[in-house]
C-alpha cells in the first residue's frame, strides 16, 4: 500500500485546480482520473467560456484544459497521475482502492479531495433504449473528442446551457438540429445561447417534451407532446419529427458514490442536483480531512468548479500543516470569485441549494 499526502479523485476542472494549489503548498499529490484524458468535461467544450478573467473567460474549454494540465508540469517530482484508472472504494481510514486495466491498486492518504463531478440524468419515455438516443455528454465525446458524427438530423431534449451549447456544436459539425424541446414554459440556459440557435433557424419548443421514439435497429422518428402549466400532457397535441439521433440533456446529478459509501453525511438537495456531502466552510466533509469540490458538491458551471478546486486545495494543504505561501490572499480571492459567479439571477438555484445545505454563500 502506497502512502501519499493527498489523493485527488477526478482530473476535471476542480481536481486539476486543487492539484496545482496543493503542489504549490508542498504536498505530494496523486491524481486519479477514470478517463483516458485529463480535463474532465473541458476536453469537449469547444466554446468560449463565460465568467471573468480569473476563470479563463473567453478562452475555449479545450484550451482551459490544456492550461490547467500545463500548470502541473513544474511539479512532476511531487505529482503522480493515474489515467484510465477507476477508484473503486474509499474507506473511513483514508484508504482508496482503484483499478487500472487489470492492475489493482491501494493507497493510504493523509487527506483526500473528491472531485468526481457529475453524471447525466436520463428521461423515461417509450422506446428510450433504441440506438441513436444519446446523452449530451456522449454526443460531445463522439463529436468533439473523436470527430465522429452522431447523426445527420438530431432533436435535442432540454434547453439548459448544455442542451443549447451542444445544439450549436452539432450545427458547427454540419448536423441539422431539427428542434430543441423544453418541458417548462421558458428556456433554461443563457438567452445568448438560445439566440445563437434561433438565428440559425432552430425552433425552440417550450412546454414540449418527447413522448415516444420509433425505430427498430436505430431511431427514425419521435413523437413530441405539449405540456400544460402543471406539466400534464395536452391531449391531441402530439406531433412527429423525423430524426436519426435524439440527444437527452435534462440535467446532471453529483457522482456522490465514493462519499456515500465511506460514511460521509449526505443530504439530498434538489437545487444542487441530488445527493451532496455535508461540508463545512473549509470544504471538508463530515469525514476529517476528506474534502469535496466541483459538481460532486452541487451542479454548477465549470468556472465555479475551478474556483472550488482551488479552495479545496488550499484547505486540504492547510489541514496537513502546509500553508500555501499566499494562503490568506488566495482564500479571500477565491471566496470573492465564487460569490461573484453566484450572486446574479442565474445563481439563484445554487444559492437556495447551499442555504438548504446549511452553507452560507
Amino acid at each position, binding site marked *: 500500500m502506497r502512502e501519499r499526502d493527498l489523493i485527488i479523485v477526478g482530473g476535471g476542472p476542480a481536481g486539476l485546480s486543487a492539484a496545482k494549489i496543493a503542489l504549490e503548498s508542498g504536498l505530494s499529490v496523486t491524481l486519479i482520473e477514470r478517463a483516458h484524458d485529463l480535463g474532465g468535461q473541458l476536453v469537449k467544450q469547444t*466554446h*468560449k*467560456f*463565460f*465568467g*471573468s*478573467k480569473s476563470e479563463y*473567460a*473567453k*478562452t*475555449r474549454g479545450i484550451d482551459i484544459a490544456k492550461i490547467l494540465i500545463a500548470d502541473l508540469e513544474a511539479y512532476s517530482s511531487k505529482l503522480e497521475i493515474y489515467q484510465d484508472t477507476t477508484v473503486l472504494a474509499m474507506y473511513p481510514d483514508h484508504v482508496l482502492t482503484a483499478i487500472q486495466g487489470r492492475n489493482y491498486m491501494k493507497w493510504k492518504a493523509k487527506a483526500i479531495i473528491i472531485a468526481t463531478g457529475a453524471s447525466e440524468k436520463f428521461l423515461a419515455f417509450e422506446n428510450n433504449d433504441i440506438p441513436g438516443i444519446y446523452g449530451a455528454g456522449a454526443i460531445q465525446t463522439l463529436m468533439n473528442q473523436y470527430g465522429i458524427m452522431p447523426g445527420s438530423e438530431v432533436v435535442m431534449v432540454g434547453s439548459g446551457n448544455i442542451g443549447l451549447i451542444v445544439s450549436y456544436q452539432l*450545427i*458547427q459539425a*454540419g448536423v441539422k438540429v431539427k428542434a430543441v424541446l423544453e418541458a417548462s*414554459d*421558458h*428556456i433554461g440556459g*443563457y*438567452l*445568448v*445561447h*438560445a*439566440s*445563437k*440557435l*434561433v*438565428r*440559425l*433557424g*432552430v425552433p*425552440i419548443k*417550450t412546454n414540449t417534451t418527447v413522448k415516444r421514439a420509433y425505430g427498430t435497429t436505430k431511431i427514425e422518428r419521435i413523437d413530441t407532446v405539449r405540456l400544460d402549466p402543471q406539466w400534464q400532457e395536452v391531449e391531441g397535441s402530439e406531433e412527429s419529427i423525423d430524426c436519426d439521433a435524439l440527444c437527452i440533456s435534462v440535467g446532471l446529478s453529483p457522482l456522490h458514490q465514493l462519499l456515500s459509501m465511506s460514511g460521509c453525511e449526505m443530504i439530498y438537495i434538489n437545487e444542487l442536483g441530488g445527493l451532496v456531502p455535508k461540508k463545512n466552510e473549509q470544504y471538508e466533509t463530515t469525514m476529517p480531512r476528506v474534502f469535496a469540490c466541483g459538481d460532486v458538491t452541487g451542479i454548477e458551471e465549470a*468556472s465555479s468548479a475551478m474556483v472550488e478546486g482551488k479552495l479545496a486545495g488550499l484547505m486540504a494543504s492547510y489541514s496537513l500543516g502546509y500553508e500555501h505561501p499566499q494562503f490568506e490572499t488566495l482564500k479571500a480571492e477565491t471566496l470573492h470569485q465564487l460569490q*461573484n*459567479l*453566484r*450572486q*446574479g*439571477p*442565474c*445563481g439563484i438555484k445554487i444559492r437556495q441549494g447551499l442555504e438548504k445545505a446549511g452553507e452560507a454563500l
Partner: protein
Amino acid sequence: MIRRIGYADKELVKTKFPSEEILVRPKAIIECYQEIPCNPCETSCPFQAITIGEDINHTPVIDYSLCTGCGMCVYSCPGLAIMVAQIKDKRAYFKIPYELLPIPQIGETWHAINRKGEILCDCRIEQVMQSKKTDRTVVITASVPQEYLYDFVTVRKRP
C-alpha cells in the same frame, strides 16, 4: 417573452442601438438582455467604453463617445451577442462573429438573416478577419440596405 422564444423582438433590439446620427461612425451593439456572470466585453475593450462593474452579473453599459467600433468585443463575447454597426451611403454595415463552415469570402453574396432565422435579403461580404487573437471566431463585415439596420443579425450561405 424573450425567455420563451429565445430572441429579441425589434422593440427590444432598438433599445440597444444608439441614434442613427451616432451610427455614421461604427459602434458596438451589445445584445446582452440577461444578467449572467460574464465580463470579457468589459475587459477586452481597449478604450474602456464598456462597463459592467464589480458585480460581473450586471449587463454591460456602453459609452458611445468612447467606442471606436474596433470590434475587439465582437470576438471576445462568448455569447456571440455583440456586433458593430455603421450607416454609410444608405447601407448598414455590420461586423459580426461567425463560427461556421464554410467561411464567407470577400466579394461573395450571402443571405442576410434576421434574429428569427429568416432570410431578409442578399448581403455583400465586405471583409473577413481572422487571426490568433480572434481564436477561431471569424469576424465578417457584411452590408445590407439601411432599412434592415434593426433586423440583420447574421449571414447564411445561399444554396
